[in-house]
């Protein structure tokens, strides 16, 4: 289904500051292809900030992020899918138009966008809602639309911030299945969640403990 990925990611001594307050520092981890990292910690511990740092949206307050196995010129942002709290869905567009845009935009030079679109529509079973405006979707369906973006372009690093919020049991299973396939293909997932997922996380990072230490 996907081309095998061979990206590994390591963080060396990274730190994060928000509004003059240090959320965490001296953070180290290394994730190899096919491995998954679970980020946990209490509210405000910096889980979202860490994911946004990995996605290149938030600057590091110290340390560095190193990728191996990818073109050295490619920033991590372009190797990763960041699915945050906001769904990035256009309410005036149909489900299909939303995903078609992401396939055209994100998967430039990575095969036929039509294939990616078909995969994205099928991933969470949104195919039959394809012609519905995204504004009419329920919260859970909007979440599925956001997660379907993971399939709109093949990227090795998935950064998921509370991906299972407002999903029903069947959809959480589909998310687990999608992550398993992604890891099997050599991808990496960094996930922050309060809801237990079936996915086997090879690493866990407890930001609450980091801060106490």
């Amino acid at each position, binding site marked *: 289904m996907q081309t095998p990925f061979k990206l590994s990611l390591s963080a060396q001594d990274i730190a994060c500051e928000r509004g003059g307050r240090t959320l965490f520092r001296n953070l180290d981890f290394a994730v190899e292809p096919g491995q998954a990292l679970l980020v946990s910690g209490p509210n405000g511990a910096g889980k979202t900030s860490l994911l946004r740092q990995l*996605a290149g*949206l*938030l600057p590091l307050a110290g340390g560095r992020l190193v990728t191996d196995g990818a073109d050295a010129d490619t920033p991590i942002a*372009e190797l990763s899918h960041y699915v945050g709290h906001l769904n990035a*869905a*256009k309410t005036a567009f149909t489900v299909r138009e939303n995903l078609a845009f992401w396939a055209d*935009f*994100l998967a*430039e030079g990575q095969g036929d966008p039509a294939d990616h679109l078909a995969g994205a529509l099928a991933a969470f079973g949104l195919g039959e809602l394809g012609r519905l405006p995204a504004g009419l979707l329920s919260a859970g369906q909007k979440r599925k639309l956001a997660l379907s973006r993971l399939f709109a372009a093949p990227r090795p690093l998935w950064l998921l911030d509370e991906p299972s919020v407002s999903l029903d049991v069947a959809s959480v299973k589909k998310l687990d299945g999608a992550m398993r396939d992604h890891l099997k293909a050599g991808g990496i997932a960094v996930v922050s969640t309060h809801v237990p997922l079936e996915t086997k996380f090879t690493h866990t990072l407890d930001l609450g403990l980091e801060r106490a230490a």
Partner: protein
Amino acid sequence: MNAALALLARDVKLAWREGGAVGVALGFYLVVIVITPLGLGPDLNLLGRIAPGILWVGLLLAGLLSAGRIFDNDYEDGTLDVLAAGPLPLSVVAGVKCLAHWLATGIPLVLIAPLLALLLNLPMGSVPSLMLAMLAGTPAVSFLAGIGASLTLGLRRSGLLLALLVVPLYVPVLIFGVSAVTPYVTGPNSLWPPFLILCALSLASMVLAPLASAAAIRNALR
């Protein structure tokens, strides 16, 4: 290239689909031009003389009215996060979005200007130069508005602040835009020098404004 075209097509489609954007700008332009003669009285010579200025000021304000939408909606629903992680540099994303604003709002404003010029008794002979000057000047209007829109990201009711930031940048566009048209009404004809300066203003803002917008967006995404 495909990614940039996809983004351009999406933004133009959204501007038309979401109503509001284009319709409000056109309606606002119409209203401003319609009430001006009512306020000034029926002196046709006076109206004809000040018509170029009124038409330009109305166009700038109508363009500003819809400028907040260039980045605001995408910022609020998280789309900008994903656009920033796309294959395009953020400055290109910003530039493409401003270009889409010009295509979806700037050009329709230019197209209804001749109709509104009738209401202000602008001599028919000067309509071609009015349209030419507006076509050359409106890209600067959209791209400069992009700077204001990106600087006010995340602020509530940012419309007025946006106007305060951007209107001073519009002064050269206004001056040369008007001076490309007034000679037809008052004196010797000299379309080309102001027209070429308008082109230069647009080209310079198309190159420089996206860089400023990208820096402001990056700051807003933190």
